[in-house]
């Protein structure tokens, strides 16, 4: 369910006649595209602000009334290696800050879905309106389109959206590129995700989720117990359910249902 239906202009459908080989080629390409769509954006620390001064020319003070921004517009240079400097009215020549860099690069090399000035949605008061309409995934896509992965705005908005989305159990389906990010917010939401993944995807997903949680938080009691006993599979989930106090009942119910299905399948 990676390729969701998208609202676009109505066009008549296209039909193609293909041989077996062409059909295989088309399916292979579709699988590659799906993998590309599921590639998760990197989780980085906030970038450090740039405040380097290249020159201070006192004799230029008072000659100009505006700042000048000089951007290197060579096409083959990656954006992260582009030199952008600002000459201020007091004669100081400094490197441009991250926000100025983003704006200048968007002006000269416009990217689809990104605005020069970030839209008003990403302010806290307007995010509330979007949450009320339950459009968390759209907001996350917009956030990825607008900001760089290491900008403080992106980190703030994405963490807020994911944590609130998990609270309301909106982002739990595994067919968008931020499902791994949801695991980073595990401490509060793991039981809910666990139950749903157990029910939908099976035992393997649940066990891998728990191992990831143990890797992130090695001090928690369930991690210690699993390490001591070297437990696998269902036992790991039982230990986890015993140690975690939230939604224990749900996990037990899910486990029982699973065991019943296993028993019936082995019997038949």
């Amino acid at each position: 369910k990676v390729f969701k239906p998208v609202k676009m202009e109505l066009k008549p459908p296209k039909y193609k006649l293909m041989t077996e080989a062409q059909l295989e080629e088309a399916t292979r390409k579709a699988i590659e595209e799906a993998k590309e769509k599921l590639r998760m954006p990197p989780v980085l620390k906030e970038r450090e602000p740039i405040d380097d001064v290249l020159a201070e020319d006192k004799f230029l003070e008072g000659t100009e009334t505006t700042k000048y921004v000089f951007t290197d517009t060579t096409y083959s240079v990656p954006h992260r290696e582009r030199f952008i400097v600002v000459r201020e009215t007091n004669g100081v020549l400094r490197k441009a800050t991250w926000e100025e860099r983003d704006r200048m690069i968007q002006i000269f090399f416009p990217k689809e879905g990104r605005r020069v000035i970030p839209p008003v949605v990403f302010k806290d008061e307007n995010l509330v309106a979007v949450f009320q309409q339950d459009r968390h995934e759209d907001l996350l896509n917009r956030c990825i389109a607008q900001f760089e992965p290491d900008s403080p705005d992106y980190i703030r908005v994405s963490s807020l959206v994911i944590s609130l989305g998990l609270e309301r159990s909106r982002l739990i389906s595994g067919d968008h590129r931020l499902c791994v990010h949801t695991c980073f917010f595990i401490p509060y939401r793991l039981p809910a995700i666990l139950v749903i993944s157990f029910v939908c995807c099976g035992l393997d997903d649940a066990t891998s989720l728990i191992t990831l949680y143990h890797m992130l938080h090695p001090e928690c009691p369930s991690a210690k117990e699993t390490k001591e006993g070297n437990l696998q599979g269902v036992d790991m989930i039982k230990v986890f359910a015993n140690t975690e106090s939230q939604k224990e009942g749900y996990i037990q119910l899910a486990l029982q249902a699973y065991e019943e299905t296993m028993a019936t399948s082995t019997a038949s």
Partner: protein
Amino acid sequence: MALAGGVALLRLAAGGLRGPGSLLWAQHSRDATATPTTSLPPQAPLRFCSRQDAPQPPPAPPSPYQEQPWEYLESEEYHLLYGASPVWLGYRRNHKGAVPPQRTRKACLRRGKRVGNPCPICRDPNLHVHFRNVKLLDQFICPHSGVILHPTHTGVCMKQHKLLTKAIEQAQDHGLLWLQVPYVPVPREDFSNQHPAIGRTPPAPALAPGSYWYPWYEWQQPPAAAVARLRRLYKGFLKEEARPDAPPAPSAEPKGE
């Protein structure tokens, strides 16, 4: 027009005749106002035909939904007028021929006057195009493709269509309206931020704070040989200086090196 002309003539005649030999009717008219009282029946005071004197319709009272236009769409009068259908349904443009012009009229309010058959938004004074009344804006967006409907389809005038487009864009910016976000792939870049364009560069060694870019911006000690040569040259004309090797005072003119 003839009556006005006649009154003017009477006035002229009355004004021209002065003195004891004046006629009775001229005196009478001089005493009375300039309106002819003899032959005409009593009338309202005469007016010359001009736009300023024509009776103006009273200005419409301000709509009660000026501040919160979104409340009108939930009121009873709206439901009575439109029901569940959109505002523009049933509006028919008046045009010649079978094919309507591909652009609607420029505006429904020209020089303060309303045209006949105004567009669906202009005909209802309580409908205000504001980015917060999402229900009204939703009616002008196609539910299947997410595209703003063309004015030939809805019948709104071009001015209102422009305002609608601006309001829809504003609402999408504020997050009140849904917006189809294009899929943007995750960038494959090096996020280490080590390049000198972004990372820290050590300041130039010659650039101590307060120093100049070129050394000759500041005063420099001239070479002793040149100073001695010039002294020999202008021996008889030099003024006595207390400290000949110090930088020149700002009041003195800087000469030579």
